[in-house]
C-alpha cells in the first residue's frame, strides 16, 4: 500500500492509456426454460483518465457486463466466450485475460478491489449493517496490503476526507444506517478507492439519489478521476448523466452493443435507429412545456423471448422485412472510436 494517500497519484498513467479491453464478451444464463443471452458479444476499451458510459434500458446487459469483468456473475450465469484484457498497474504490467481466471482464484481476488473496484447502485444493500463504515473500509485495505490496524484506520479517515465526508474522524465509527443516502454513496466510493484502483466501475451510482445529491456525487467522481487518472466505466440508463460525464459511449440493447462512439457523435449524429429513437423519447428539461414525446412502439421483449435477427427489429422504424428478422447484423466499423451494428450501414449483409 502507498505510504500515504496522496490526493494525486505519484505515477499516474498518462490520460488515454488503454487499461481494459473487452472483446466479444458473451455471458449466458442457462436455465431450464432456455438460455438468456444477457451479454452477447460486447467489445469496448477503457482508458486512463477517461470515462466510458454504458447506457441502455433494463435487461440490456449493462450490469452483467460489469459483473462479468469482475468475475462476479451470479449462477447460473457464465462467461461463454470473449476476452477481458486488463493491463495492471495503470498500463505498466503484463496484460491478463480476466475472462480466463476462475472467479475464486487468488489472481482474480488480487485484482478485485485492488486493480478494478466497483461502486454499486444501492449503497444501503451493499454495506453490512453490523460493522462500522470504518471497519468495512479497513477490511478492504488490509486484504490487499500488510497495513496494521492503526495504519488502515488512519487511511480510512483520510479516504473519507478525500470523498468529502464531513467530520471523518467521527463518521468512521458510525454504521451505514446512520448516514444519509448521499453520504453512504460517498463512503461507497471511499471504499472503492481504498486500494487505489486504476479502473472504477460505477453501476448506476446516482440512480437512488436526489438530483442535487446526484450533482454532488458526479462532481466528486469527476474530480477524483482527474486527480488519480482513473479509468471510469459509468453504467446508467440516464442519457443526461451520460452527456455530462462520458467521453465515449456504448449503447446496449438486449445484450448487444448497437452503437459505440464519442459522446458528441452519439448525441448529435446517432447512427443506430435505437439510439436515435432513445434520444427522441427522453423527456428533456429544455423541452417546450406540455409537448408530447416521440415514442418507441412496443416494449422491451422478455429475454427468453428474444426476437430473431436484430433484437430491435420489432420496434424499429427502419425495419427491412427479410433482412433484419433473418440475421443479426454484424458490427460496421466507422472509425477506431465509432461502430454501429445495423443493416443500414452494411451490417455484414
Amino acid at each position, binding site marked *: 500500500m502507498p505510504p500515504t494517500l496522496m490526493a494525486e497519484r505519484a505515477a499516474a498513467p498518462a490520460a488515454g492509456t488503454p487499461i481494459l479491453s473487452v472483446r466479444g464478451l458473451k455471458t449466458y444464463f442457462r436455465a431450464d426454460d432456455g438460455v438468456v443471452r444477457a451479454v452477447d458479444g460486447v467489445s469496448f476499451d477503457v482508458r486512463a483518465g477517461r470515462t466510458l458510459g454504458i447506457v441502455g*434500458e*433494463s435487461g440490456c446487459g449493462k450490469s452483467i457486463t460489469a459483473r462479468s469483468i469482475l468475475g462476479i456473475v451470479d449462477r447460473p450465469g457464465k462467461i461463454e466466450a470473449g476476452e477481458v484484457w486488463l493491463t495492471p498497474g495503470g498500463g505498466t504490467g503484463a496484460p491478463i485475460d480476466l475472462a480466463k481466471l476462475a472467479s475464486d482464484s487468488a489472481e482474480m481476488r488480487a485484482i478485485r478491489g485492488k486493480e478494478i473496484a466497483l461502486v454499486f447502485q444501492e449503497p444501503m444493500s451493499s454495506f453490512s449493517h453490523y460493522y462500522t463504515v470504518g471497519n468495512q473500509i479497513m477490511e478492504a485495505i488490509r486484504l490487499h496490503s500488510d497495513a496494521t490496524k492503526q495504519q488502515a484506520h488512519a487511511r480510512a479517515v483520510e479516504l473519507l476526507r478525500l470523498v468529502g465526508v*464531513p467530520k471523518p474522524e467521527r463518521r468512521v465509527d458510525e454504521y451505514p444506517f446512520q448516514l*444519509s*443516502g*448521499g*453520504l453512504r454513496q460517498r463512503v461507497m466510493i471511499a471504499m472503492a478507492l481504498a486500494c487505489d484502483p486504476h479502473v472504477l466501475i460505477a453501476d448506476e451510482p446516482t440512480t437512488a439519489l*436526489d*438530483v*442535487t*445529491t*446526484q*450533482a*454532488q456525487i*458526479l*462532481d466528486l467522481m469527476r474530480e477524483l478521476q482527474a486527480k488519480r487518472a482513473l479509468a471510469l466505466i459509468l453504467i446508467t*440508463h*440516464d*442519457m*443526461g*448523466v*451520460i*452527456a*455530462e460525464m*462520458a467521453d465515449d459511449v456504448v449503447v446496449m440493447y438486449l445484450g448487444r452493443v448497437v452503437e459505440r462512439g464519442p*459522446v*458528441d457523435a452519439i*448525441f*448529435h449524429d446517432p447512427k443506430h435507429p435505437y439510439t436515435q*429513437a*432513445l*434520444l427522441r*423519447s*427522453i*423527456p*428533456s*428539461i*429544455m*423541452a*417546450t*412545456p*406540455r*409537448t*408530447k*414525446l*416521440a*415514442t*418507441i412502439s412496443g*416494449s*422491451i421483449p422478455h429475454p427468453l423471448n428474444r426476437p430473431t435477427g436484430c433484437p430491435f427489429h420489432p*420496434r424499429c422504424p427502419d425495419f427491412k422485412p427479410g433482412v433484419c428478422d433473418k440475421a443479426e447484423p454484424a458490427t460496421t466499423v466507422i472509425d477506431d472510436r465509432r461502430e454501429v451494428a445495423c443493416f443500414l450501414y452494411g451490417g455484414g449483409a
Partner: protein
Amino acid sequence: MNVLEVVNLRKYFPIRKGLLRRIAGQVRAVDGVSFHIKKGETLALVGESGCGKTTVSRCILRALPPSEGEIRFAVDGKVVDLAKLPKRALRPYRRHIQMVFQDPFSSLNPRMVIADIIGEPLLINGMRSGEERRKRVKELLDMVQLPAAYMNRFPHAFSGGQRQRVGIARALALHPSLIVADEPVSALDVSVQAQILNLLLDLQDRLGLTYLFVAHDLSVVKHVSDRVAVMYVGRMVEIAGTADIFARPRHPYTEALLSAVPKPDPRLKSERIILERDVADPANPPPGCHFHPRCRYAVERCKVDTPALQEVEPNRWVSCHRAHELMLRGVQ
C-alpha cells in the same frame, strides 16, 4: 374553477421514545402548505425525497389524517373540507379522487385478472351487473390502448408499461374529478415512460381530467404540467406556471434544483450549482427559512424570519425574503 384548495395543511408525525412511548418530538413532514388546482389542469408537486410531497398527496386522499389545515374539494356543486370530515362521512367522496401508483408491480393484485382489477371499483360503487361491468372495462381498456382480449389475463403476463396502463384504467373507472399520480413513470424504462406520459396527456385532453402529478424528475414534469409547485422540507417554496418557473425561477432552491438536472446534450457545459451539505432534517429543521444553511444568497434575516408564501407577480407565489431583488438563472 378550483377542484381542490389546500389551505395551510400540516401533518406532524410524533417521535416516541422510551418505555412509556412518550412523545419526544415531531417530524414536521408537511408544515403549512397551501395551493389550489383548477379544473382540467395538471399541477406538478415536486421536490426531493423527504420534502413532504407524498405526505401531501396522502392527506388529500385521506390515507393519512392531516394534523391541521383545510382540504377544500369541489364536488357535485358543493365544497367539502376533506380534512375535517370523519372517516365514515368521507365515503361518498372517495370515488371522486383516484390514485395512480408508482410501482406497477405491487399495485395490482397478482391473483386477480385485469377485468376484476378494473371492475372492482365499479362493483363497489354499485354496478352490480357483470354484463355492464365488462362493457365498461372494455371501454376503459380501449382508452388506455390495451386490447380488450387482455381482460382475462393476470398482471404477471404484462410488462411494466402495460401494467401502468391497467392502473390508469382502474383510476378512470369512476369518472374521478381529480387523479393523484404519485411518480407514475419513475419505475419505467425511458422508451416506455414516453408512451405513458403521452397517454396521460391524451386522456386529459379527451376527458378533461385534472391531475395532481407528484414527481421528482423535473424533465418529466416539464412535459406534462401546467403549473409547478416546489416543496422543500415540508414547506412550499414556489408555485408558478411551468414555462415561467423553468425559464426564470424566483426561489434559490428552485434555481439549484433546475441547474442540477443533467441535460441530455454534451455540448451544453452546464454550470451546476452544487448545494453544500444535506437536506435539513424535518424533525429538527433550522430556524427561519429552512433552506438558508444551503442558500448562497442567504442574509441575516433568513436565519431568523420564516418567509411567507407571497404572490410576487400574478400567479407566481414565492417564499423568499429576497424574491424581489434576486435575478436567478433558469433553463430555456
